[in-house]
């Protein structure tokens, strides 16, 4: 590359050439391969080093095609789902702080209810306790996660909300087998199995969740405690509740309240 050619490229990139010079510059690019190579590299350097530009790659590059194929594979698609989930939870975290007073109020309400129940000396069997504590309205929704593959999950969620638990399981169970990284699917599945009195299956589902490294793993303990309670396995339930309280796992305040109720019985 000569000094003159270098200045010509420099002037083109700085926008210092007039219209005629630009036409002749472009013709030169078509006919002079060495000149074109030097220009393309310099253009890429300019774009990549400037704060106000970026050096874009061409889709025709074979490397790009390889990355595209890898991105379409199931494992990276599953990572994408995990990122969406963690992102959604991360976004909610500060909101939880602002709603602290609401939770205190909720915890206080639970405490008052418990006191009232003791005061009125009402017999409250375990089924009632589970009904009181099993709140499915807070389960994560599959709607609006920005993925096309969640249509089935949205349908399954709909069945679940309409208490058509078997229909929801028909969709959730095959999903669990292929996508082991989806915490909410475990929760829906386990609760649906519990509602259908498939207690052994439900316990297996919650154990899988507990033993996973998913964010929802802690929630598995809470539902497992309720699962034991509904089967009148009070001691087993208390043991799980104690684990939740001592580790400050998900719903540890509720677990403490429930544990106190069970100990008073």
């Amino acid at each position: 590359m000569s000094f003159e050619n270098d200045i010509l490229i420099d002037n083109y990139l700085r926008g210092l050439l007039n219209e005629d010079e630009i036409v002749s510059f472009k013709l030169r690019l078509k006919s002079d391969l060495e000149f074109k190579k030097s220009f393309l590299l310099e253009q890429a350097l300019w774009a990549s080093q400037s704060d106000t530009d970026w050096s874009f790659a061409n889709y025709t590059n074979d490397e790009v095609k390889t990355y595209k194929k890898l991105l379409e594979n199931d494992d990276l698609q599953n990572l994408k789902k995990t990122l969406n989930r963690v992102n959604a939870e991360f976004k909610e975290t500060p909101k939880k702080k602002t709603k602290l007073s609401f939770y205190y109020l909720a915890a206080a309400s639970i405490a008052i209810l418990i006191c009232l129940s003791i005061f009125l000396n009402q017999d409250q069997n375990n089924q009632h306790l589970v009904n009181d504590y099993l709140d499915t309205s807070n389960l994560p929704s599959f709607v609006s996660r920005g993925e096309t593959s969640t249509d089935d999950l949205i349908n399954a969620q709909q069945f679940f909300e309409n208490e058509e638990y078997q229909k929801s399981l028909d969709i959730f169970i095959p999903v669990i087998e292929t996508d082991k990284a989806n915490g909410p699917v475990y929760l829906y599945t386990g609760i649906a199995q519990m509602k259908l009195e498939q207690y052994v299956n439900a316990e297996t589902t919650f154990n899988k969740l507990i033993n996973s490294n998913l964010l929802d793993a802690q929630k598995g303990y809470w539902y497992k405690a309720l699962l034991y309670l509904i089967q009148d396995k009070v001691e087993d339930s208390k043991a799980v509740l104690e684990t939740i309280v001592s580790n400050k796992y998900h719903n540890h305040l509720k677990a403490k309240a429930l544990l106190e109720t069970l100990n008073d019985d």
Partner: protein
Amino acid sequence: MKNPGYFLKGLINNNENTVKEIYENSFNQVLGFVSNNRGQYVDAEDIFQKALLQLAVRYKREPFEIKTSFEAYLFTVCKNLWRRELNKSKRVVTNDYIIELKDDNDDIALSVLEQKRWELFAEYFERLSGNCNKIMKLFFKRVSYSEIVKIFDYNSETVARQRVFKCKAKLKELIISDERFKDLLEL
């Protein structure tokens, strides 16, 4: 400080706890950068996810080493992705052969190559001598020759141009002779 490999492996193994850790360590820093550079919260979310997918797909194709902390590296990738995003419209105007991008995967696949190219350039900038390194950084940041003359106390613009020419020729020679470069830019 955890080894960068811990985070990269966590990503390709789809470890939700590792992803959470990355969010806790780095998201707010990226949000701050994007917010200060004409972006919104949703832009930061998008960039952050694309950056993590970019790292994952790259590591999956061929494990690579991060020489800084994982957080510093991720922040650089996010900054470049945001720069890419801000300049997308310019690309539509200047390229003769725009291919309509179908989904995020196209964008991420392209960005891997672009990031690798950016890193290769950065590596060779650092290999230049001290004076050449400084002059090249100013040149590619589009600082005028008259300012370069003042900064380096050269006698004239001609001297500055000759110095730029020599340093640039050296830089280009180093880059072109690197085997990795052949896959990164079609010449």
